[in-house]
């Protein structure tokens, strides 16, 4: 699958993306440090694929997703979407780019204006970015509601009248309004009940096929990412530690963090209990304002070596299509990187 696309240009290309937030303290609010939420992240998203971005809370995956869409002014790095460099573009010029790239947010309660009707919410991007007539807009809203499985009759209702799953459908319809190519889905199912999650995931897959969408799917749910993603990137403390095609990553994780993360996921099968070797990580994630020297994971890594505490491992392709940042996969142990 990947080989077929190899000749194609990636739709989204991120290089060495950094997003540092300053910390101010003291009477004069002097800058005393920074939170390195995203610290040198590089990846490509191919046209039509879903790149899963997984990690635990605070690892920077949401910040990364928002930064890629330039919802922040990034610290440094390059972001190319659809052959346009947007890493340094000023916000007012980004407006014309916005229709190509959209976002579905985690909390459908907080991301929908409670004082706007469903119709007004889905129509707003059309008002802002197109010169459609009112009739055309209304028809488009109707089509979008059909596409996400909402009854057109509910167009005049307000968000509070809908359940969590239906609200997420409204958010998805809004994201689709301008025929985007690339959608960042930031934990779109985390706030939903188990029986509703599958409905929304199936919808996202249908829409992807129907409209040829490309997704960056951010989630902490490793089993759901295994279902939806073509390739998966694992983040830890602001960096991608491993990126690989789905099957390869779940069958044979390379990075010790990925191994621990996968082994920690509880499986709904009591007969596996005792058979699956669990790697219980000790301690907590260090603060991103004061990451450890060397490898970010060295404080918790079960396979830590001396070199890990001094040298940061390079993020590189260790096998075809498989990237990781770990000294265990150095060809020679003299810290090339």
């Amino acid at each position, binding site marked *: 699958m990947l080989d077929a696309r190899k000749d194609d240009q990636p739709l989204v290309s991120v290089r060495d993306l950094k997003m540092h937030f300053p910390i101010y303290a003291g009477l004069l609010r002097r800058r005393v440090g920074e939170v390195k939420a995203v610290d040198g992240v590089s990846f490509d998203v191919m046209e039509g694929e879903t790149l899963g971005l997984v990690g*635990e*809370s605070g690892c920077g995956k949401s910040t990364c997703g928002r930064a890629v869409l330039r919802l922040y002014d990034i610290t440094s790095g390059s972001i190319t979407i659809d052959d346009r460099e947007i890493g340094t573009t000023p916000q007012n010029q980004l407006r014309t780019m916005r229709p190509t790239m959209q976002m579905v947010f985690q909390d459908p309660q907080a991301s929908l204006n409670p004082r706007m009707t469903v119709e007004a919410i889905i129509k707003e991007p059309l008002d802002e970015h197109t010169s459609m007539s009112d009739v055309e807009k209304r028809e488009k809203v109707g089509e979008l509601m059909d596409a996400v499985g909402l009854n057109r009759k509910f167009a005049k209702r307000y968000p509070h009248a809908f*359940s969590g*799953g239906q609200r997420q459908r409204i958010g998805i319809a809004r994201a689709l309004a301008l025929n985007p190519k690339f959608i960042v889905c930031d934990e779109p199912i985390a706030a939903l*009940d*188990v*029986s*509703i*999650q*599958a*409905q929304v*995931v*199936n919808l996202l*897959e249908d829409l992807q096929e129907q409209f040829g969408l490309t997704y960056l799917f951010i989630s*902490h749910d*490793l*089993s*759901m990412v*295994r*279902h939806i993603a073509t390739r998966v990137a694992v983040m830890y403390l602001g960096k991608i530690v491993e990126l690989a095609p789905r099957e390869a990553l*779940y069958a044979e994780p390379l990075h010790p963090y990925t191994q*621990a*993360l*996968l*082994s*920690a*996921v*509880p*499986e*709904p*099968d*009591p*007969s*596996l*209990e005792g058979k*699956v070797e*669990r790697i*219980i*990580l000790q301690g*907590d994630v260090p603060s991103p304002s004061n990451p450890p020297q060397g490898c970010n994971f060295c404080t918790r890594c079960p396979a830590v070596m001396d070199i890990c505490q001094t040298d940061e491992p390079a993020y590189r392709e260790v096998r075809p299509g498989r990237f990781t940042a770990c000294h265990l996969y150095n060809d020679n142990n003299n810290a090339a990187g």
Partner: protein
Amino acid sequence: MPDGALPVLDVRDLKTVFKTRAGEVHAVNDVSFALKPGELLGVVGESGSGKSVTMMSLLGLLPSPPADIRGGTVTFGGNDLLKVDAETLRAVRGGKIGFVFQDPMTSLNPVFNVGVQIMEPLRKHMGLNKRDAAKRAQELLELVGIPDAQRRLKDYPHQFSGGMRQRVMIAIALACDPQVLIADEPTTALDVTIQAQILELMKELRSKLGMAVIWITHDLGVIAGIADRVMVMYGGQVVEHAPVKELFRNPQHPYTRALLKTIPTIHGERAARLTIIEGQPPIMMNAPSACPFRDRCDVAFDRCARENPPRYDLGDGHDAACFFDARTGGPRDA
């Protein structure tokens, strides 16, 4: 888990109703279960299924109004907890029955250090003096695996990480050697690697202390790993109840079967498409006169709309509230 042992906690036909402006919401409908000494009972359900309200009801933790406990008995230590006076109930809560809540940040008091909060039940329930309580508090922190316990007693909740805070909560719940520990989604707010730590700690504590545990969660994966028996709730009712292996190998209620199919796995076969349960969970307005799952059920028939199915005993501690017999593939005899 001796089979013939008397249950430590026996709940019969518990019924809780919330009075709202829109009418009465029947949050808990005739829920019955018995907890044997030393066992871990898992309670699974989606939000609104009544799993938390059941546990809050039996300890009198719901404000009334709007909550109204309409009926049932809760037998613990020879008393019916629904009938005893406030003083006795207070002695039970945090004493013989410990509680761990979902969110460790909001259930700890931010203005007191954790030492004070662990010592509170020790002094109130066990009448320990300050020095003994402090000593015991330190032991408890060591028990739940917090390093450098003596110094950490003086720290405030914000100085602990999420996983460490949940350990503190568990220490408080365990302070008075409870016979029953009720844990309401204790790992839901935590990351998977931290969740794995807490689950491991829980297994260790159970084998050390031997208390019975009720573990509420929506995560079937967590349940599979730690429970002895499982109770599945839907629409304020117990729809299926079985020993853990039996439930996962041989689910009998259509809701349990659908739920198990809808969740993707890490190790198993990857489905090309997820199985979905159509529709929404019900809002239990008015007393139930039909099966709460019938609108989303793929085997529902006319009887399901007329009557609410009772829990049919299927043998070996397995029961399911469904008129459809999955074993024969037809309706159960009336």
